[in-house]
């Protein structure tokens, strides 16, 4: 069935409005490109000719894109059969992708604003495969109702023996007060920097960069340089905070975490771009309680899912497996327990602290990192100019206490334990992560010991898993205790290879 690919019963096409979507998107790009081109051409050609050329070019571009997408639409068929889901596409050579239904682990619906206005969604169907690129199948786009139907059909399986103690339905909905944690996230300074950079970039495009700089210089005439920098930084930070609030609203508006019958967790959220993430519970291997520094200082935490079967780039994008935005710590634990169907969250269990030698290692490492720039400046200062000696002093005064504080905090964060069916490891200071991994989800161990660790009687125990980051490590545990922890976590696996006494 090479030419008649997918003309039998059950085969469906994508939604024909995809051509319109492509035309509109291309039109947007064309307008964006046409404006500077028109401006550039109007010099040598005159205004009317420039507009004419730009319009012709834009029309050609839009026409080609729409025609291309029409052909793609004509040639694309999909079928959700009894055993497999197939997608046939391709212009010259037909590309076939086929997923076994029983291996499908996630069905995500996303709708960018344009798709949303037109009543369409993009459906991404994923399997549990971690290797190889053929593990997802994307239908871009189908009607929203069709997307919902596919999601229900493909994930609707009866899970026997699911604990009745934990409720179906809604587990969490958005509490607008959570927005107070948005400004303390790392997004705020980043967005502030981006805003400042954006102002300079745009003024550069319109050729007004010098004027902007002069305008700012005029405002601060007579003000000491330190104050100028402080005020500008504060302005950038304020812009960043506003940006972070806006971003939070866009990302988390309409947030709902639900458990659907059949054992699927579903996250829905988004103001302009609506996102829907469905995770089959039998694919869930645990949760990761993530506390970035600012959020942790505010007493909050975020909950990520540790699941198998998200594709590689999905794992990389941080918000894709987030089940719960930053919320008060106690609530995060409660929701984590609800998600895992446990009476109490394993992430809240008391942890075994690591030996003091681990603190020494963290202090030494932090001091080395902090002292490196100081030493370089001292060296250059001695050789070249004494000014660098003063900047070195300044660096030392700022960096050393910071490094020591972070190192001590990183040591305090270290911990591991076994809590019920879960193995819990915690580490990190700037981004503290408390991962609770199902013991049955551990598919191997890696034990590492450097020369320094051996002398200090420490080692690092890593549980490898098919889910999430692939490995969760208890760093710098006591050598004996760490091995005992690993041996207890998965009975029988490590035991034959241990010597006691």
């Amino acid at each position, binding site marked *: 069935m090479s030419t008649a690919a997918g003309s039998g019963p059950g085969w469906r096409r994508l939604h024909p409005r995809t051509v319109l979507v492509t035309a509109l998107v291309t039109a947007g790009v064309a307008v964006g490109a046409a404006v500077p081109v028109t401006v550039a051409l109007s010099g040598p050609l005159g205004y009317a000719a420039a507009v004419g050329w730009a319009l012709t070019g834009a029309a050609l571009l839009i026409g080609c894109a729409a025609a291309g997408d029409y052909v793609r639409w004509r040639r694309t068929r999909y079928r959700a059969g009894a055993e497999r889901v197939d997608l046939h596409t391709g212009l010259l050579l037909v590309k076939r992708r086929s997923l076994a239904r029983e291996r499908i682990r996630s069905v995500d619906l996303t709708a960018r604003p344009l798709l949303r206005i037109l009543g369409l969604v993009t459906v991404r169907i994923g399997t*549990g495969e*971690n*290797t190889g690129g053929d593990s997802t199948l994307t239908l871009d786009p189908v009607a929203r109702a069709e997307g919902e139907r596919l999601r229900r059909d493909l994930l609707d399986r009866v899970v026997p023996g699911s604990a009745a103690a934990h409720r179906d339905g809604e587990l969490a909905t958005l509490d607008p007060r959570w927005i107070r944690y948005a400004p303390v996230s790392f997004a705020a300074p980043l967005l502030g920097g981006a805003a400042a950079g954006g102002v300079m970039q745009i003024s550069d495009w319109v050729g007004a960069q010098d004027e902007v700089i002069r305008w700012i210089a005029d405002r601060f005439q007579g003000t000491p340089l330190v104050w100028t920098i402080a005020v500008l930084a504060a302005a950038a930070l304020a812009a960043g905070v506003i940006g972070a609030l806006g971003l939070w609203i866009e990302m988390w508006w309409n947030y709902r975490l639900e458990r659907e019958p059949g054992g699927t967790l579903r996250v829905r959220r988004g103001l302009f771009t609506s996102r829907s993430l469905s995770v089959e519970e039998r694919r869930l291997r645990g949760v990761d309680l993530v506390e970035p520094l600012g959020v942790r200082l505010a007493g909050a935490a975020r909950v990520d899912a540790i699941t*198998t079967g998200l594709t590689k780039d999905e794992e990389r994008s941080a918000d894709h497996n987030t089940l719960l935005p930053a919320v008060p710590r106690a609530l995060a634990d409660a929701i984590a327990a609800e998600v895992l169907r446990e009476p109490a969250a394993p992430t809240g269990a008391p942890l075994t602290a690591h030996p003091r030698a681990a603190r020494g290692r963290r202090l030494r490492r932090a001091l080395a990192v902090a002292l490196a720039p100081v030493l370089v400046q001292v060296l250059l200062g001695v050789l070249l100019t004494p000014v660098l000696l003063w900047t070195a002093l300044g660096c030392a005064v700022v960096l050393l206490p910071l490094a020591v504080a972070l190192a001590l905090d990183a040591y305090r964060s270290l911990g591991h334990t076994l809590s019920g069916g879960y193995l819990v490891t915690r580490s990190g200071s700037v981004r503290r992560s408390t991962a609770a991994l199902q013991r049955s*989800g551990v*598919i*191997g*161990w*890696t*034990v*590492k*010991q*450097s*020369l320094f660790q*051996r002398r200090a009687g420490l080692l690092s125990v*890593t549980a*490898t*898993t*098919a*889910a999430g*980051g*692939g*490995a969760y490590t208890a760093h710098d545990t006591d*050598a*004996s*205790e760490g*091995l*005992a*922890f690993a*041996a*207890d976590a998965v009975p*029988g*696996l*490590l035991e*034959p*290879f*241990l*010597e*006691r*006494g």
Partner: protein
Amino acid sequence: MTTGEGTIRLRPPRNAPDRRAVGWWRVQWLLLTAAPVAVLGVLGGLIAPARFWLLTPAAVIAGIGLLCAVLFPLWWFRTHRWEVTDEAVYVSTGVLLREWRIAPMSRIQTVDTVRGPLEQLFGLATVTVTTASAKGAVEIEGLTHEAAAELAERLTRITQDTPGDAT
């Protein structure tokens, strides 16, 4: 199985790599050293004014490389060990950074045997065992061709007999 009743250690796996692995590791070190030394040496020969600044590092790299080529293979030969039981594959490697890897049979997904050009020369092969984790691969280096084939066959047989979907 509580903590604090004496020390617990990982015992070394039972099997050593083939003796020829020492030669193979040595040649790898020499090739690794030869590449930058050759580049620096040729440049030093061509660019007379910078000769000292090119040939000195070349000599230093060559010295370090030779030392590594002599010492590391001997150390590795003493620390690289592997073992396959009915339940798990167990491998230990490394001198300065020691590493022990354990993969249970029930979670093994693929068994690959690789013979690189250098390994061919020494009659050696590497067996790589992967699990569903992106970070859980276990490599057994320095096996003879026969031992590698036999091991791969045995691993495949055991994993086929073990039920489960390996995640």
